[in-house]
């Protein structure tokens, strides 16, 4: 689910007016634009980091970057995709900088998560499954991870992902397929089945 309360995208004419007011330093316009998209950016960031504080920092950083670069926004372009692209790039930077730290801070490394016996009938507990999945998602290649997160955590459509990442729909589908296939392999020891 996309985060509750996430506002729908604003109409292009409304956005154009907001940008103009932001350029003039209108605080109300800053607020309106931020409120309209902050939850979507947060959802993307949280899916990456699984950490509230990091995600909140990233929301702030994304909007500040947006206000700085607002003149470089090409009118007519999908604003939401552009904003998410900015957020995604910042997430990747942040992720690369802090990956090692988070790896060290993580209470239960993936290697220590309970491994199911081969052929075990009982399903792994949902909270464990969430942890296993999150840890396995982190092991995916950059683009596969981004697409999986956008598709399954942020529930974006393939077309929206393609727009946000500036790649073709076919590439999105192919990378998503690879992500799922790799996740199955990575999760296999914890699920108790063989692929």
């Amino acid at each position, binding site marked *: 689910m996309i*985060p509750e309360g996430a506002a729908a995208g604003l109409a292009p004419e409304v956005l154009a007016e907001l940008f103009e007011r932001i350029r003039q330093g209108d605080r109300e316009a*800053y*607020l309106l634009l*931020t409120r309209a998209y902050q939850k979507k950016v947060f*959802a993307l960031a*949280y*899916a990456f980091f699984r950490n509230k504080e990091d995600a909140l920092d990233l929301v702030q950083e994304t909007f*500040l970057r947006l206000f700085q670069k607002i003149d470089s926004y090409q009118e007519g372009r999908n604003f939401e995709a552009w904003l998410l692209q900015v957020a995604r790039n910042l997430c990747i930077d942040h992720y690369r900088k802090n990956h090692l730290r988070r790896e060290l801070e993580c209470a239960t490394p993936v290697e220590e998560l309970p491994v199911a016996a081969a052929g075990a009938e009982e399903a792994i507990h949902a909270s464990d499954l*969430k942890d296993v999945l999150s840890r396995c998602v982190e092991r995916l290649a950059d683009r596969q991870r981004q697409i999986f997160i956008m598709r399954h955590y942020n529930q974006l459509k393939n077309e929206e992902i393609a727009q946000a990442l500036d790649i073709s729909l076919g590439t999105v589908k192919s990378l998503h397929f690879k992500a799922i296939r790799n996740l199955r392999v990575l*999760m296999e020891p914890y699920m108790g089945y063989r692929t």
Partner: protein
Amino acid sequence: MNVFRKSRRAVCAALKAGAAAPEAKAKEHAMGGKRRRPNEDFQPILIGAEAVRDEMGAVMKDIDWDGLSDRIADTGLAEKRLRTGAARREPRRVFPLRFLLAGAAAGLLIGVLTTTLFLRRGPSALPGPSAFAASGEFLQRVELEMAKRETIHYLEQSEYVLLDLLEPSAAGAALEPAGASAERARGLLAKKRYFNAHLGDVRMAKARALCDQIEILLLELSQESRSFEAAEADEIRRYVEDKQLLLRIRLMKKELRVSEA
């Protein structure tokens, strides 16, 4: 495709056999009962993703979104003010200062390079007197030496002309200046005009007086168009003998050569 055909054949076989088995069961039978439904493999992933989304939703409920957007808007505005202020100050302060610093740095660099070059080469590298620079005294000496040489040459050539003139066989005869003698006389007159300016020095005064007397004689001899009567010729010879021109020429040559050495 093969799997699809195989399962389809299995379903048909099951139907022909009269079994009311469901299609799924027939497929399972066709696959030997080993293959799971496709969704079965994805199920944990989908469940895990849903759990993450639930967690995300719970986290988002606790966030003060209005407070967050207020903070973002305030920080954004503050940054904008800073940028605008910096941009306004820049043209007045930063750019001239940059130019000044660049100029000072360039001046310093040139100064250091010049000093380094000077110190490396040492004082001998200072521009000394060039090949074209000479003192006035030196130039005067050069001029005098040149005048002496020219004069010696002039006197020698004149001596030959006079010797031809004073030939013993020619005594009492009319003087017929040959073309060659007249030509030589004219050449000597031209030479005299050329180095006459060099004879202005006091030390060349005696030589100049002699050269002038020879010049008068040469002027007469250079008249190629006229021949001299015997009386006129004798008068010229007497002039040479009276003035002791040959003797004086020899003495002068000797004197000039000595002083030249």
